[in-house]
């Protein structure tokens, strides 16, 4: 019986998490203005405490990208960092009041690592969403 209850808890919380991420991904799109085209993907994770979410992506030279980072019901809850392949820090929105979006002008193509975590002074758990758009 305990296993059943545990499974139920996990299943229902998971469904709730998906629902939370879905609505957040929708509202985060407001930061990708008409000048930008989304890459068609929403990068997301449910985070707790100090957990860090990460993914790698290629940014192509000669393009301008917009990163939008959202968690919770207000802007500024998600801290994100961008590193190059040698782990040099290229940018963090932490230095700019956790700005919910930022633009990047890319001179040469590069693979970057994107890391995100919750600003624990504002949120201790929640869905994290990052959306990337490129300028038309």
């Amino acid at each position, binding site marked *: *019986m305990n296993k059943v*209850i545990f499974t*139920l*808890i996990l299943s*229902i*919380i*998971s*469904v709730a998490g*998906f629902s*939370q*991420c*879905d609505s957040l991904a929708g509202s985060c*799109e407001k930061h990708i203005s008409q000048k930008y*085209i*989304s*890459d*068609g*993907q*929403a*990068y*997301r*994770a*449910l985070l*707790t405490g100090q*957990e*860090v*979410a*990460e*993914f*790698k*992506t*290629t940014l*192509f*030279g000669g393009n301008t990208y917009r990163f939008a980072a959202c968690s919770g*019901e207000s802007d500024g*809850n998600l801290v994100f960092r961008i590193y*190059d*392949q*040698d782990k040099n820090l*290229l*940018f963090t929105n932490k230095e700019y009041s956790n700005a919910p*979006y*930022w*633009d*990047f*002008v*890319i*001179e*040469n*193509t590069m693979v970057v690592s994107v890391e995100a975590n919750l600003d624990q*002074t504002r*949120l*201790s*758990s*929640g869905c*994290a969403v*990052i959306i*990337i758009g*490129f300028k*038309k």
Partner: protein
Amino acid sequence: MSLRPTFIGSMFLVVSLVVFSTGCEQPASTNSTNNATDGNSVSGSGTVKLDGEIISIPSPNQLAILVKQSNVPFREEQLHDLKKADYYLSEQKKAMNLGIYGADLAYIANFDKGQLANDYFDAVGKVAGELEVLDHIDGKLVSRLSNNISNRDSVLRLSSQFFHSADRYLKNNKRTDLAGLVLLGGWVESIHFASEAAKTNEDVRRRIAEQKHACASLTNLLKNLGDPAMEGLLEQMKELNALYADFPVTYSYSKPITDAKEKTTYITSKSTVEMDLKQLEAVSNRIEAIRSIIIQ
């Protein structure tokens, strides 16, 4: 029977938890014990891979725009056969061909081919409908896309929103595998178009050479699926990866410049990747082999 009160009590707790976690995020002052991870893997260091093994693939729109800028003329024969839109039986094939038709739509839109765009939007809708994705995409978005099919900018933006919605729906329903296969189809089709343009345009050739990371991510996706039906495709992708491994790459870090007022950072690091015409031909042949498997 004696367990019933405990079970009911537990269910009450569960429902309370769900209402709490759906309605609002937990404020920083509470001690969270919610370890739900949305299907993500959490390592000992507390690092979460977004959506498990998240893959980030460049939008087919980006390559389509570059192909258009290369002044290589539009070639309708490069598009996937419209008649095949209702030919595929498995979910995997449908997902990959949804990506293929989506990339076709991006290619067509860049060359302002209104009627053709309409036909390929129908094909996208048909395959998306069979994957039960269409029912979950905002009807207004679909009708706006349909009404603006002759407007290049609108098609690029709205089709991107369409695929964004499809991606969200599939991931919400724990079909991250299908969401990944849509990306695979779109990526293969966009390289298929670009390969032709790359024969005469160095910028396009470089852009194909820069797809190493995307190729590796998509290969990992197929490997992780562990689907015997995808074995042939996986082998071809591994071969493609091996080709990419041979391209000489250089990188040197340069300190970025940030304009805080404009919320813009200029990334000025230098990088190069080289691919000669012979290597392009090898990549192109492998892409055609992969595409044949997907569309057959």
